[in-house]
C-alpha cells in the first residue's frame, strides 16, 4: 500500500478545502490508533458526551469511532458503517484497494459528505460539530462523515413580523435550514453562499449570501472586510455580528436591517443587497439598510397598491407623530397657548387645573411608566401577562387621572404616541422613535416649538449624514432617485416601476 503517496494527496486536498480555517501550527495525528485514542481522550478530558468506540474486525484492524453523543444519527452509523463491517468483514480482492479509509469512503459509506483530515485541531472541530470521526490503525488520516442529526426547532410562523397575507415561514436557529429556505425561493445558481466562521470559542458559522450580477460589489467587499475584522470570542446571535460591523455605534437608528422572514430577506437579495446569516439566530441581517426599509412591511407587496400607499402614509405620519407628539403637547400648552383651538385649550386648562406637576414632569412620568409597562410586558411569563395590561389600564390610566396625579390629556398623548411607535413594522426600528422622544421633549419643555424645530433639524442632519455600508440612509429621498421614490412615496405597481 502506498501510504505515503496517499498521505500527500490527502494533505493537499485538506489544505485546499480548508484554506481559511486551517490553523498555522497544525499538528498531524499519529498513525498508531492507540496514540490517537490517548490524544483525543486528553483533548476531550471530562467531556462525558464524547463517545469513543473501538471496533475490532476479524481481530485484524482496529477502528476507532469518536463522536458527540446526541449530535449524530446512530442509526446511520449502525446500519451503514458498523453492520456491514462487522458482518461482512472487509471486502477483499476487489483490486486497487490502497487503504481501509478508501474502502470505507468509497464502498461502505452511504453518507453524502465525507472528509479526510489529519490535523488534530480540525478533527476536533469537526467532531464537535456532529461529524463521526473514524480512525484506522496504521493510517495517518481520519475519515470524517457528516452524520449530523440533532433536535432543532421546526419552521414556525414569524413572531415579530407577522403578516396577513405573506408567507408564514420564518427562519430557525439552524443555518442550513435558513439557507435552504432562501435557496427554495431564489432558484438560481447565481445565489451565492459564502461561509466563514467567527468567534474564537463559538466558531459560529456565518453565511454571506448575495446574488451575483445584482449585488453591489463595493458593499459585498465591505461586508467581507468587516466580517474578517471581527475579533471576539463569541457570536451567539446575529446582533453580535450586527454590532461588530455597523457603521455608527452611537446612532439611534439601526443601520442593518434584520428580518426573520425568508421572503423579506430574499427580496433584499433581489434588490442587490447582501444577506448575513448567523448560525443560532433566526434573524438574517440585510445590508445596506435605508430609513424607508424600516417602514416597509411585508404585506405592502402582497396587497393592492392603492391601499398600501394609503397605509404607508399613515405609517409615515404616525412615525413623526410618535417622535414629536408629546413634545408638541408640552410646547403648545406651556408656550403657545394661543395656537390651540380655544375650546380645546379651555378643556385642557380644565383638566390640568388640579395637576400637581408641571406638564413636562407629567409627560415624563407617564412616558417612563409606559416604557416600564412595555418592558415588563416582554419579560413576563404568559400566565401573568394580562396582569400588566390590567395594572397599566386601570391603575396608571384610570386611577392616576381620577386621583389628580396625572391629567387626562397627558395619558391620551402618551398612549397615542406609544401606539404610534408600535405602528412601525420593524420592531427594532421603533427604538429610535422611542428614544428620540425624550430629548425632544426636554427641548420642547425648555424652548417650546423652537426647541422641537431644532431637535428635528438635528435628527435630520444626523439622518442625512448617516450611511449604511456606503449607502446614504435616506436614499432615495436624499440623494433623490425618481425611480426609487415610487416605492417610498407610493407603492407603485411593480410592472410600472420596472418600466421606469
Amino acid at each position: 500500500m502506498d501510504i505515503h503517496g496517499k498521505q500527500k494527496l490527502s494533505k493537499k486536498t485538506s489544505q485546499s478545502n480548508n484554506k481559511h480555517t486551517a490553523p498555522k501550527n497544525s499538528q498531524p495525528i499519529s498513525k498508531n490508533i492507540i496514540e490517537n485514542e490517548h490524544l483525543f481522550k486528553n483533548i476531550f478530558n471530562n467531556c462525558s458526551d464524547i463517545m469513543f468506540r473501538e471496533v475490532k474486525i476479524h481481530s485484524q484492524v482496529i477502528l476507532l469511532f469518536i463522536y458527540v453523543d446526541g449530535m449524530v444519527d446512530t442509526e446511520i452509523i449502525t446500519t451503514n458503517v458498523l453492520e456491514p463491517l462487522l458482518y461482512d468483514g472487509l471486502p477483499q480482492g476487489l483490486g486497487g484497494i490502497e487503504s481501509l479509509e478508501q474502502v470505507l469512503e468509497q464502498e461502505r459509506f452511504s453518507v453524502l459528505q465525507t472528509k479526510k483530515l489529519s490535523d488534530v485541531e480540525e478533527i476536533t472541530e469537526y467532531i464537535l460539530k456532529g461529524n463521526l470521526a473514524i480512525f484506522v490503525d496504521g493510517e495517518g488520516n481520519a475519515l470524517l462523515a457528516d452524520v449530523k442529526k440533532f433536535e432543532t426547532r421546526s419552521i414556525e410562523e414569524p413572531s415579530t413580523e407577522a403578516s396577513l397575507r405573506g408567507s408564514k415561514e420564518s427562519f430557525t436557529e439552524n443555518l442550513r435550514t435558513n439557507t435552504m429556505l432562501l435557496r427554495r425561493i431564489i432558484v438560481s445558481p447565481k445565489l451565492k453562499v459564502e461561509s466563514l466562521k467567527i468567534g474564537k470559542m463559538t466558531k459560529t458559522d456565518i453565511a454571506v449570501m448575495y446574488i451575483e450580477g445584482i449585488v453591489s460589489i463595493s458593499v459585498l467587499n465591505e461586508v467581507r472586510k468587516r466580517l474578517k475584522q471581527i475579533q471576539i470570542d463569541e457570536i451567539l446571535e446575529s446582533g453580535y455580528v450586527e454590532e461588530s460591523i455597523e457603521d455608527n455605534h452611537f446612532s439611534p437608528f439601526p443601520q442593518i436591517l434584520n428580518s426573520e422572514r425568508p421572503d423579506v430577506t430574499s427580496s433584499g437579495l433581489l434588490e442587490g443587497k447582501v444577506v448575513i446569516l448567523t448560525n443560532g439566530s433566526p434573524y438574517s441581517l440585510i445590508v445596506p439598510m435605508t430609513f424607508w426599509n424600516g417602514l416597509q412591511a411585508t404585506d405592502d407587496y402582497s396587497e393592492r397598491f392603492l391601499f398600501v400607499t394609503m397605509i404607508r402614509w399613515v405609517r409615515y405620519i404616525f412615525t413623526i407623530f410618535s417622535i414629536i407628539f408629546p413634545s408638541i403637547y408640552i410646547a403648545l400648552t406651556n408656550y403657545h397657548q394661543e395656537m390651540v383651538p380655544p375650546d380645546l385649550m379651555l378643556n385642557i386648562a380644565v383638566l390640568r387645573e388640579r395637576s400637581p406637576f408641571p406638564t413636562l414632569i407629567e409627560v415624563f412620568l407617564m412616558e417612563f411608566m409606559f416604557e416600564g409597562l412595555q418592558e415588563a410586558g416582554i419579560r413576563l411569563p404568559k400566565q401573568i401577562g394580562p396582569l400588566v395590561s390590567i395594572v397599566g389600564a386601570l391603575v396608571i390610566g384610570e386611577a392616576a387621572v381620577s386621583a389628580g396625579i396625572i391629567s387626562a390629556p397627558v395619558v391620551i398623548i402618551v398612549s397615542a404616541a406609544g401606539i404610534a411607535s408600535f405602528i412601525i413594522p420593524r420592531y427594532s426600528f421603533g427604538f429610535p422613535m422611542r428614544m428620540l422622544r425624550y430629548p425632544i421633549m426636554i427641548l420642547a419643555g425648555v424652548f417650546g416649538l423652537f426647541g422641537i424645530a431644532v431637535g428635528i433639524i438635528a435628527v435630520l442632519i444626523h439622518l442625512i449624514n448617516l450611511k449604511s455600508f456606503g449607502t446614504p440612509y435616506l436614499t432615495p429621498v436624499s440623494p433623490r432617485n425618481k425611480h426609487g421614490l415610487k416605492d417610498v412615496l407610493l407603492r407603485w405597481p411593480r410592472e410600472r416601476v420596472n418600466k421606469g
Partner: protein
Amino acid sequence: MDLKTYCCDGLESELIRGELLMKRIGRCIIVLLLILFSTTGCWNLKEPNQLAFFTGNGLDLTEDGKLEATVLIVTPAGIGGGQFSSGDKKKGYQVVSATGKNVSDAITNIQSKLSRHVFPGHRDIFLVGQRLADQGIGETIDPFLRNAHSDLRSLIYLVKDAKPEEIFSIEPFFDQFITTSLSDEQTAIGIKPYLAREFVIDVLSEGTQPLMPVVSLNPQNHYNFDGSAIFNKEDNVKLVGFLNKKETFYANWVKDRLSSHTLTSFINQGDGTISITLGSFKRHITVKEVDEEIHIDLRLSGKGTIIENSTNLDPSKGVDLKLIEDELEKITQKAIEKQIKMVQKKYKMDIYGFGESVHQQYPKQWKTIKHNWSEHFSQLHVSVNVDLTCNNPGQANWSIYP
C-alpha cells in the same frame, strides 16, 4: 432601489469623514441651541393653570368719562370636567372690570384683581360700548387690537344702549359662555362673521367705512342682534348712525357678505305674503364714467326657495312664478335703492365699499377723488338691478287651506 449608484468605493475614508462630520454636527447643534436661548426659554413658560383665559373683552367709558375695560374670564375649576364634579359648584366664568387712564392701564388694573396672568389669545368677542363709540374708538382700540397676544379673529360688536359688562353677564342659552353664543350669532342669521381683523382692514382701506354689527340688551335680559353701526373713520372712527336689521341684510348683500336670508313680502297681485329663503348671493359692481361723473351699476342676484305662500298664486306655474320673482325683485330693488339714498344723504359714509370698486376699475381717477371720497359718495349715481331666481317649489306650492 438602485444601490450601485450610491455606493462609494472609498468606504474607509468615508468613515473617517463621517466621524469628523459628527463632530461638526455636534458643534452645529450647540450653536443652534445658543441662538435659541436668545429667542426663547423656560422663563417664558406658563402652565395653563397660571393663565387667566378671557374669551370676551369689552371697552367702554364710565359715566365720568374714564376708560373701563371688562373681561369675561374662564374659571376652569367651574367648568364640567367629570373628574372635578365633587364639591360646591363654581360658576364657569367671571366678569371683571377695571378703569384706567388708557387701555394698558385698565388691563393692568384688571390684572391686579387676578391671581393668574391675563391671556388674550383666546378672545372670541370684542365689545365696544356705545358711549366710547360716540367719542370715537380709533385711538383706544388701536393698541388693543395690535397687541401681539391679541387674537384678531375675535368678532367685534357694538353694544347699543348697554354696557359690555351687562352683555357679558347674560346667562347663555346654549353655551358655556355668552361669548360663544355671540360668535355663532352672525353665522346663524346668515351674515358672514365680522372679525376684528376685518374691522382693521376696513379702517385702513381707502374706500370703505366700517359697518359693525350691533347687539343690545332686551327686556328678558338676553341679547338681541340689532342691526349694525356706521362709523366714520375719518373722524377717529366715531359712531355716526345705525342701520336696522332689515337694512343690515341689504347692506351686507351689497357688501357681498350675506350667506342666507329669508325675504318676506306682500304681493299685491296675489293678495298675500310670500316668504323666500335666499342663498348663493352674488354682487357685481360696474363703475362707469359718464360726463366726468361716476356711475355705479350694481347687480345683485340670489337664488332661493319659496317656503311660505299665502297668496292665491301657484308657483308651480311658470307665469305665476315669474310674477312672484318680478314682484320680489321690484320690492327689493326699491328697498335697496332707498337705503343707499338714505346712507348717501344722511350719513355720507361709503359702507358698501363702492370706493374700492372705483379704485380697482378707475385707479387714475381714484387718486384725485379719494381725499374727499365721502363727498363724492354722497353724489354718486347708483343704479340697482336685482335678479332673484326661485327654484321650483315642488309640492309645497299652495296652502292646504283653500
